[in-house]
């Protein structure tokens, strides 16, 4: 056997440490098909169950500080352009208007709703939470607005112009859904 073939065999033996995650999904789909064989309409065309699955761990890059402050300190941070002074929220490390660097700056928990919508139908992942409002909220001391959940508190719709305040989850993971806004009464 060639040396390179031997090495390949060796790797083959230790590469896969556990059952691939995809196979869990395959099992679930196969159960569904057994219960409902009509999905294969081979009279007219042949149709097969399938999926495209990818798993990730991705980096927030230079935006990470925002999520660290959010998670550890329940604080909202924006970024101020060192040259033109725009306060970005959500923050970005570079200013897209003048190409200068920005610096971190805390922003107010209080803000104004720029516009919003109430979601009644959406993907399966979020369906059990409907209806919910999402809208762009500009903190009182920032120049731009960020998309966020706004607590409907029994209303059908959140009007643009409403004053809101940030509320933080007790247990935070470092994602944008660690906080939301509520109407300031």
């Amino acid at each position: 056997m060639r040396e390179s073939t031997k090495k390949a065999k060796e790797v083959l033996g230790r590469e896969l440490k556990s059952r691939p995650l995809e196979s869990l999904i395959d099992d679930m789909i196969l159960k569904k098909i057994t219960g409902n064989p009509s999905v294969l309409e081979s009279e007219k065309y042949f149709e097969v169950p399938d999926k495209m699955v990818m798993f990730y761990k991705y980096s927030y890059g230079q935006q990470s500080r925002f999520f660290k402050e959010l998670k550890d300190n329940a604080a909202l941070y924006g970024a101020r352009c060192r040259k033109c002074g725009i306060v970005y929220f959500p923050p970005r490390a570079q200013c897209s208007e003048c190409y200068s660097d920005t610096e971190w700056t805390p922003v107010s928990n209080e803000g104004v709703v720029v516009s919003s919508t109430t979601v009644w139908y959406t993907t399966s992942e979020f369906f059990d939470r409907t209806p919910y409002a999402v809208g762009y909220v500009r903190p009182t001391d920032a120049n731009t607005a960020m998309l966020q959940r706004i607590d409907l508190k029994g209303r059908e719709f959140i009007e643009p112009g409403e004053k809101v305040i940030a509320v933080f989850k007790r247990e935070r993971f470092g994602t944008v859904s660690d906080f939301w806004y509520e109407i300031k009464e």
Partner: protein
Amino acid sequence: MKSYLQLKNEGGRVAIVGTGQTKFEARIPGMTYYELAFQAAKNALADANIEPGMIDSVVYGIYNDLFERQIMPDTYIHDYLGMYGKPGTRITTGGATGGYAFRAAYADVASGLSDIAMVVGVEKAQDCYDWAQGKTTPEVLKSIAYSADMTWEFPLGVSAASSYAVLASAHMKKYGTTEEQAAMVSVKNHGNALNNPFAQSPMRITVDDVMSSRIISYPFKLLDSSLYTEGAYVLIIMNEKKVREIGVKDPVWVKGIGSSNDKSFTGLRSSIDKLGKFGDIADLRNHYKAAEEAYRMAGISNPRKEIDVAELHDAFSFTEIQAYEAMGFCERGKGGLFVEEGTASMGGDLPVSPSGGLLGAGHAVGATGVMQIGEIANQIRHKAGRRQIEIRNNNGLAHSIGGPGSSYCTVTILGGN
């Protein structure tokens, strides 16, 4: 930018010389995406009366790899169409994919790189299937939702509808546009589709029907929203020299193209930034800019008077109202009144979306913009059958938009000899 007049004087114009399509349907399980593309291409080549071998290059408009369940689907279509040996590229710009694919093909021909080019817009959608729910729609929505920014917006549970609904809410607040006015767009476009044998949703409905359909994302209701569609639409374009050489009798000239993309982080749009003169979150600012550019190239100064017919991208009924304003068909903030007065209706002074638009004809995303340009081409050359509009000024407009908060926009102006 060279003006249309300048191009005309130089003999440097580009014309649409053939259109072809498949029927637009919710799902076409009997055909793959390359089979759909083939059928539309065959029809377009027959309409243009040219052989496949005469095509110099192809531009593919295909929106979403997750719809097709295929990364790089264009390369397989290129093979299936027998276009191997020739250059083929793909454009993917959300809902504006078709319009931008046309722009790329135009550039190909206008630059002299190709004499004859083919624009292939195609989309599958409803092969997406949520096995847990036993339904198609949630999975279709998911494949679109993945285009939301993964860090700042996706985790909040957004959708294509919510992304455009915030623009509509802002428009309602700023200008007093009503849900009833938006419903009129839906009534009009579903009705127009009755004259389009290729349309997915021809329907005679009322404002009440729209108003009482269930809310998807306020203020959008089900009948305010276009559905997911499968289908293909193909255009053949060629340069002026070839038009003369072949002796095309009814070339439809490209008179103007204008394109502009706004900030995709919609909350960053402000009245003091570089697009600020066109407005804020309530206004489709890049649509204003794209239209302005297209009109400048075409030499049009009063679109309300000079445009005979338009196809606007009504993914949602409210968006068409916002587009009336951006296209200069009416004053800013008066889009609701424009549809209410009937100007945009089939018998009106400036009929909009005789094909039925996305609401009526369907939204086969990559094919949509190509279809709407093809519809205007057929209107201009009097091949629109039962839905033919009277062409007085020899100008038609097609509008193609997409992306988060309608960040992509391209506008095409066509005219005959």
